[in-house]
Each structure stands twice: as C-alpha cells, then as structure tokens.
C-alpha cells in the first residue's frame, strides 16, 4: 500500500535533514502509530505521503503511484484516496456538521445523489447523527474531531493519515477517538496515526514506527511507545 524507500528530506537552509534514509513498508489494512518527540520528523513524514513535499532523496509509492515523479495535476487524485485528520480539526466555522462533510465530496465533484446518501451514513458512523445541523463552535473538541474524521472518511479513502488527532483532547475523549479510528481500520482502511500519546500507544499494541532526529529508530509489531521522557 505504502512503500517508502531510502527517503531523506532536507529543508532549504536547515543544517540537518528532517528525515534520514527512511525505509518503511505498510500493507493494506494496517494500523500504525508513528511516534517520537517533537521535531523528530513526524509531520514531514505525513506531508511527504500527502505529496505536499517531495523527498530530496529516495522513492515513495502509494498504491503503485510514484509520488516523486508524479505530475502536478495528478496530486489531487492521489489525495482523494487519502483522508486527513489534524490536531486542529480544520473545520469550516460557517458550515454545519453536515455541510462540512458534504463540502469534501462536493469539491471533488461527487454527484449530489451520492453525497446525500453517503454523508448521513458516515456521520452516523462517527456517532454524531444528532448534531447534523450544528455548527462547529457548538460542539466539544471530541465531537469536532469526529466530524473531521467523518470528512476524512466520507470518500472511503484507502488510507487515513492522522497527525496528532488527540493532541487537544482529554484522555477519555482521546480513547473514544482512537476506538473510532480502530473501527475505521477494521473496514479495511489503512490508518496511520502520528502521536505523542504514550498510554494510547501502549494500550492498543499496534505496529509502532519510532522516529528520532529524523532517523528510523524502531519498527515493531504490537509495539509500545518506548521513550523515557
């Protein structure tokens, strides 16, 4: 599904690379935690997968597509197959829950009929069917993150990337979000979660990829967070 081969990434003007010679293979349907201290390269890792950045060295393939040599106009097509969840939710404040999720399908040109069928379904999946016409500022942080997950999943992407999805949430709410991501994973979707959340990683016992100063330190099935801070 995702193949990262000898990837290094240096930003212009920075004296040390953000990522150094990373090799990772991820299969369809895996659930992966990407862990490591701040500045270890987690965000760079995610931005490379979204093709917001192009690696300075190495190759990245997603579902057979070569991201390094990808034409610019094909990038949107790649992103339709990757759902994104962020720490700050990135919801549109002037749109309701329904509209926020529908917007993601509208702008990629899905027919109205499909939108009308799919949006309520995915909102039900995240458990917000009671809040369809609420605005984001009327929701709790956890609920907003659920909307954002619903939006990411609405187009049924093969991959969900979540960058610190529980960074702003308390532990109880966080575990709700994680079990939601786990539920989505069980539908066959590959899920990659970048996180700081030690307890979460330790309790879920999924594959853990640990980065430190841009280098891959550990890639372990049923792993734990593993850093002493």
């Amino acid at each position, binding site marked *: 599904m995702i193949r990262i081969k000898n990837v290094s990434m240096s930003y212009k003007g920075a004296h040390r690379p953000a990522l150094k010679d990373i090799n990772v293979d991820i299969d369809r349907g895996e659930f992966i935690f990407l862990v490591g201290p701040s500045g270890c390269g987690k965000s760079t890792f995610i931005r490379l997968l*979204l093709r917001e950045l192009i690696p300075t060295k190495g190759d990245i393939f997603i579902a057979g597509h070569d991201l390094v040599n990808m034409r*610019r*106009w094909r990038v*949107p*097509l*790649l*992103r*339709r*197959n*990757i759902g*994104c969840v962020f720490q700050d939710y*990135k919801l*549109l404040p002037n749109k309701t829950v329904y509209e926020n999720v529908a*917007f*993601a399908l*509208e*702008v*990629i*040109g899905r027919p109205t009929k499909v939108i009308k069928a799919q949006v309520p379904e995915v909102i039900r999946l995240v458990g917000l069917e009671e809040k369809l016409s609420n605005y984001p500022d009327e929701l709790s942080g956890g609920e907003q993150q659920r909307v954002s997950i619903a*939006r990411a999943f609405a*187009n049924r992407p093969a991959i969900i990337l979540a960058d610190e999805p529980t960074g702003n949430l308390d532990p109880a709410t966080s575990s709700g979000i994680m079990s939601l991501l786990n539920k989505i994973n069980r539908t066959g979707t590959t899920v990659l979660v970048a996180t700081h959340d030690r307890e979460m990683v330790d309790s879920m016992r999924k594959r853990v990829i640990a980065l430190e100063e841009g280098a891959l330190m550990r890639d372990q099935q049923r792993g734990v967070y593993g850093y002493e801070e």
Partner: protein
Amino acid sequence: MQFRPFYFLKESLVSFKKNWVISMAGITTVALSLLLVGAFMLFAFAMNNIIKSTEQKVEVVLFLAEGVPAESVEALQAEIISWEEVKKATYVSKEQALGRLKQEFKESDMLEMLEGNPLPASLEVTLKNPQKANDVVDRLKGRSEIDDIRHDRETVERLFQVTRVARWFIVVFVGLLAFTSLVLIANAIRLAIYARRKEVAIMRLVGASNWFIRWPFLLEGILQGFIGGIIAALLLYLAKVMLIDKIKGALVFLPISSSPQEFYQLIFALLAAGMFIGAAGSAIALRRFLRV
C-alpha cells in the same frame, strides 16, 4: 476535471459581494481605461472619415483672381491639363460655387445673411498621384491669374499628425491605466483568496482539482473586468447620443459620421478587453498567491 459553471459562478458572486469595495477599485479603473480607449477610437473613426473624404475631394484648388478674362482661364486650364501629373482640371464658376454652398447648407439658415456672391471662381485640379501636389503647387505659385491656392493635402497631413500624436499619448496613458487595473484586480482577487484560505486549504487536502479551486477566483476577476467594460460601454453610448450625434447635427459639413456597425464592434471589443484584463489580473493573483 469537472467544470460546473453555476457552482463556480455562485462562489465568485458570494466572494464578490463580500469584498465589493475593493472590487469597485478594479472595476472603476477598468471602466476608465476602456472609456478612454473607446473615446479615442470614436475620435479616430471620425478622423479617418474626414481624412478619407478629404482625400477623395480635389487635391489642389486654385482660386482665380477677380476679373481674369475667360480666355486666359481657358489657357491656364489647358496648360495644367497638359502636365503629366494632372488627371483633370475642372472650372467652377462663381455661380456654381454658390450653388454648391447652398446645397451643403440647405438645412441651416446661415446663408440668408449672405449678400451677393463673395465666392471666387476656381479651377479644381485632380492629380494622378496626390503625393505630387507640392510640385504642382510650387509651379503655380505667383501666377497672376491665381489669387490663392488651397491645398488639402496639407490639411490631411496635419490631421494625420494630430492623430499620430494623440494615438501615442493614448497608448501610453491607456497602458498605464490598464496596468493599474490589472494590479487592482489582482489585489482584489488576492483578498478573495485570503478570505477563503481555509476553504482552499481543505479543498486541496481532500483532493479538489487545481482548476476546480482556481475557477471561482478566475471568474471573479473576469466578472470585474466585464462590469468595468459594461460601464465604459454605457458611458460611451451616452456620450455618443448626447454629444457626438448633436455635434454632427450642428457641423453638417464635417463628415464625422461613424457607422452604427463600427460603434457596436467597438462596444464588443471593449467588453472583450475588460474580460481579458480581469482574467489576466486574477491569473497574476492565482499564480502568486494560490499555489495549488
């Protein structure tokens, strides 16, 4: 890529309403520059008509002195015709001259004040090659039969000169104005992009195609240019109806009539130019501020 005109148009109208004050700046300068171009074009059309009809007329007119006997006039006429540059030389008597004038001014009462016949008899000389007019005039200068020589070529050349200077002036001025409108429209679009940066970020994230993101902004710029063009066309139409048509009525002897067809072509060209400026302005903004 899917093109959904109504969706894009709706998006650009919403955005246009949101920052209409800034949009007005772009629209105004587009209107102003197109108005200038249009006014100059009307002026140039009129000039062209004057030049054309002057050229079709006689190139050199010899006004004969009073009391020159008929045989010396005939001799002069024969001599001029014998010159190789000359196509023909026609004698116009005092009476014929007055008759023509009356014909030209039949709609006005200006001639009622006229006593007697102040018009001289003349020889109208048509040349094979109008460029040679100066040679002919030089040769005829100082002849006792001739009181005065009118040489329309000079008028034509002066008109050409005026239009040439005016053209350069207008080109530079309109160029500056067009540049200003371009910058102002680009700025309005930049603000529109800024106002919607969150939506744009999400559109990119979920994989909206690049043109899907660009279209509403491009349309917004084109819309601004188009509105500017409409304003310019309206003002020009008013100017034509209220000014030029009136002047034409008053100065019947000036052939400044421009055909309605020319006018509508001009209007059409102005609208197209407005849309082009708008598209170019938003394209600049899209390139600089919307890296999709």
